[in-house]
């Protein structure tokens, strides 16, 4: 392959890689925002109760305070599930590694990778 074609191929692959990474980063950012917001809102609204408003018998689920179960355990398990879905279906294996064309190589470049 001529150097020009190599270069063209490398740049096209690189652009695809960047688009996919951006796509994945937006999803990750969304997961972070939703998980932390949902969890914080539940933890605050259900867990930060004025002393005089606290029930004599606190509500427990499996021995854990209900606000911890609803605000921490359940969102955490849901986040694990979403993380798995993300890793299984949304995060794509990168395209086959395309060698950096000679004229674009950095002085330290060494293609030990495969992807």
């Amino acid at each position, binding site marked *: 392959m001529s150097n020009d074609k190599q270069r063209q191929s490398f740049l096209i692959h690189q652009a695809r890689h960047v688009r996919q990474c951006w796509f994945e*980063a937006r999803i990750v950012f969304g997961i972070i925002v939703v998980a932390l917001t949902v969890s914080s809102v539940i933890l605050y609204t259900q867990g930060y109760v004025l002393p005089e408003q606290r029930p004599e018998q606190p509500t427990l689920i499996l021995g854990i305070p209900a606000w911890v179960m609803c605000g921490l355990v359940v969102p955490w398990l849901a986040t694990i599930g979403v993380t798995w879905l993300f890793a299984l279906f949304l995060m794509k294996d990168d395209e086959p590694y395309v060698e950096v064309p000679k004229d674009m190589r950095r002085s330290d470049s060494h293609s030990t990778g495969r992807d």
Partner: protein
Amino acid sequence: MYDSLLLLGQVSETTSKWYALTQRDPAILIPFIGYMLAVFAIAIIAHRYQRGAEFEVEYYVAGRSFGPWVLALSWVATLASGGSFLGYPSLVYSYGWTIAFWVAGSMVTAIAGLGLVGKRINRLARQTGALTLVDLLRDRYSNDTIGSVYAVMIVILTTVYLMAQFIAGAVILQSILGTSYRMGLILFAVSVVAYTTYGGFRAVAWTDTMQGIVMIVGVVLLVPFAIHAAGGMREATTRLAERPDPTAQLRGLETRQHDYLYGPGPEKVVQELDGGEQGPAPTANPYLPLSLALSMVLLRGIGGVLMPTAVPRMLAFRDTRALRRALMLLAPYLFLMYGSSLITMNCAWSLGLDLAPGKSDQAVPEMAKLVAPAWLAGVLIAAPFAAVMSTVDSALLVVSGSVVRDLIQKTFKLKLSQFFQRALAYFVTAATGVLVLTLALSQPQFLIPLVIHYTGGAASVLFWPSLATLYWKRATAAGILSGLLGGGCIYIAVVLFKPFDGIVNLHPFMYAFPASAILVGIGSWLTARQGDEDLEFYFGRDE
């Protein structure tokens, strides 16, 4: 890593609890001794990989060969320091279920840490030959100032952080072996520096993997023993609800109902509290007000994404498939790690464990004594030690890489043969260990604030400049420098002058983190964008 300050805050309160535990049954030391032998065996095997390989690629990124298990477990072992296994449980013991809010940010640590930047860093590192994140920044902007500033910041922050970990490791050994602090420190330093220097990044990653397993086994297996001894979780929580708040009593405050079951929790424990406050009537100072809880959620959630010690893993994994699987392993791992201690230590009160305020560092050994059989107590002793070791070995290599690669070879443009690269890498790694050992022996007081603010400061300074370099075409060298230096300056200013403390109690990170983002943006927009030729390499060209 986030919890290191918890541990450091308690090392002066060293107790002989661990030692007493080992005296109860010397067999407890068997898992610990086995663990130490395994660490050295791994270093010897890992060293063999350096033969015939390109030295620096092998020594600093292990030939970019990590599979999912090594990536996941070495990443988490590096991020979790001794504080995660001693400091965090003692927090749970001190403040009960309130800590659920404090730890909530950890639910996204895995996906933020690996999912946000892992793939991009790995790909670019292969293409540019980068062995450190600084290599990448320097390459993208062709700017030595950025590389030098970033490297110097990493060296300073990580060296100080290392000191804290050395102290923690020494204290644990001191407690286990019943020796002096000085002897504990020397034993710890010699062992960890030896295997890190000799084995390089591969030894570090493999030992971290083993350490990750030891850590999770220790904390998870304690859960059923604790629940069983407490007569069930419901019984434990019901009894915890009746726990009086000793700090409130000492301060002459009225004890609030069910403080250990709800936010913002019982009174914050203050070490110098002597029970007799002077002046106006004391006001309530609960441990976790909402503002501080939200700060911790954000800091724990994304603060660790681009930590200097965690980033080398991103440069070292084999392919995206390994990354995806590592992500799937890490997500439940963190849940088990933090969830287990939350349950175990909330059982402690119902088991009759009644420690005075400020003595909660004894909570883990006391619980081990109360509920764990000898073999599990042995693993519990090894777990915090493993966590400290895994953090120290990674940090040693980070400092070594920054000095040898980023400063000596790149900033000062020294061309070294393979022989001298090897000699220099060994020398700098060992010399860093000796320097930190010397610092830890004297424990200079002026460094302590730096340690306490390591995580928040590093996240404030490093996150946005690094993220912009990876994802934002419009980022420029001036913007990156603005974010690096400005974020640091704002963090220090907030710590020193506390300008908003009377209004809202936020962690300094909450000001410096967004400020760094804004500065990266402004600095970049105000300066000329990079040429298309330079950007094409990083961002490609559309079809």
